[in-house]
């Protein structure tokens, strides 16, 4: 129970900071809308409707990148992480708290992005919504630990997308497959598998990333 309380407290800290400073979320919202508009002009007029589904996934992925990149940089720069590591909490709780917070940001951005996509392009199906929900978990689980790794290095903002994009290819396959494939359930199951495997790996190994 204390573990859940720790996670909730850590996530609350990030959400409160965001409420006061309002840095990440407005940037994510504007970015996802601007990306969708840019994609509208990147597609030729006679492009198939199915192509736009792929663009939705690229927009979601890049928006997540934008939000998660910042997740651990203030922690490193203002030495918050040193305090968190010394605090009497399980270190994986730091990761889980970050996952919950970034998940909240990403979900908020998508609440705007999906209707906007429906308005600009084509109707969003239920299987797409389910795939987005499953993919968010995987994106945030993998993203939170990779952002912590990238923030430890010199390149920081530059490094995170390079680390993350190869790992996100299976998410794109699952997401686009669920939207355009004949059998969405298979792709949703694959996304769930991805979430489970990488969440366990990240949860178990996060401790080694932040220990000094």
């Amino acid at each position, binding site marked *: 129970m204390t573990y859940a309380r720790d996670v909730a407290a850590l996530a609350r800290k990030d959400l409160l900071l965001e409420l006061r400073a309002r840095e990440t979320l407005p940037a994510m919202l504007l970015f996802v809308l601007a990306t969708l508009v840019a994609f509208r002009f990147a597609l030729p007029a006679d492009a198939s409707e199915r192509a736009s589904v792929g663009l939705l996934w690229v927009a979601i992925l890049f928006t997540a990148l934008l939000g998660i990149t910042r997740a651990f940089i203030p922690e490193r720069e203002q030495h918050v992480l040193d305090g968190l590591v010394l605090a009497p909490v399980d270190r994986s709780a730091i990761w889980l708290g970050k996952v919950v917070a970034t998940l909240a940001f990403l979900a908020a951005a998508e609440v705007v992005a999906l209707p906007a996509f429906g308005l600009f392009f084509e109707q969003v199906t239920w299987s797409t919504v389910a795939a987005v929900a499953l993919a968010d978990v995987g994106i945030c689980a993998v993203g939170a630990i990779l952002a912590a790794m990238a923030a430890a290095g010199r390149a920081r903002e530059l490094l995170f997308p390079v*680390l993350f994009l190869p790992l996100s290819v*299976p998410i794109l*396959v699952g997401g686009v497959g669920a939207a355009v494939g004949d059998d969405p359930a298979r792709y949703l199951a*694959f996304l769930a*598998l991805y979430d489970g495997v*990488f969440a366990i*790996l990240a949860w178990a190994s996060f401790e*080694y990333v932040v220990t000094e």
Partner: protein
Amino acid sequence: MAVAAAVVLVTGVALALLWAPEDADQGPSQRIFYLHVPIALTAYACFGWGAWKALRLLWTGDQRYDLESYTAVHMGTIFGTLTLVTGSIWARTSWGVWWSWGERQLVLFLILFLFYAAYFMLRFSLPDGPGRARISAVYALFGVVLIPISFLAIRLAENFIHPVVFTRDGPQMSGDMFFTFCVSLAGMLLLAGTLYLNELAGKRLDLRLRDLRESLELG
């Protein structure tokens, strides 16, 4: 070991070119199979070995595993790049294109190539020390989990035009072909092992030299 690697590898190539029967469909170009597939399997073996050493590092905290894991990943990336090159040549001769998104193994190796290139970026961006060793190790572990997941993803995403040689019923080739394949594979693995040991010895020597130089400057 270097001599053994050279002998077995030359034997493998000789067998592949001169002795193994010609493929009825693809003709002589099929013979690159005896190089391409052993190189790919060797790359997997290197990545697996690197992840195993990474796991040992996290488990025991012994710093010497860091260099071993890094060297194995380094070798894996070299063999992975060779897989991309040989696969591309094969695709050109068989299908007339340098690159085909239909070929699962090649796409997988492209993803892995990007992933492990990022491994090197990560490693060179971190300050030297136990922190770097641990973070690199965690990333290397993500790599071996990514291999089967990506494989599954590509399978889900693809139209299947790649010839599948190994099925659940065992290898679909004649005994002579299989023997040649095994000799080539053994040669490649020996080559990778030799390179790995040489590289490791070289890197250890570098580190020792640096330590000695530092203590000289201090003294």
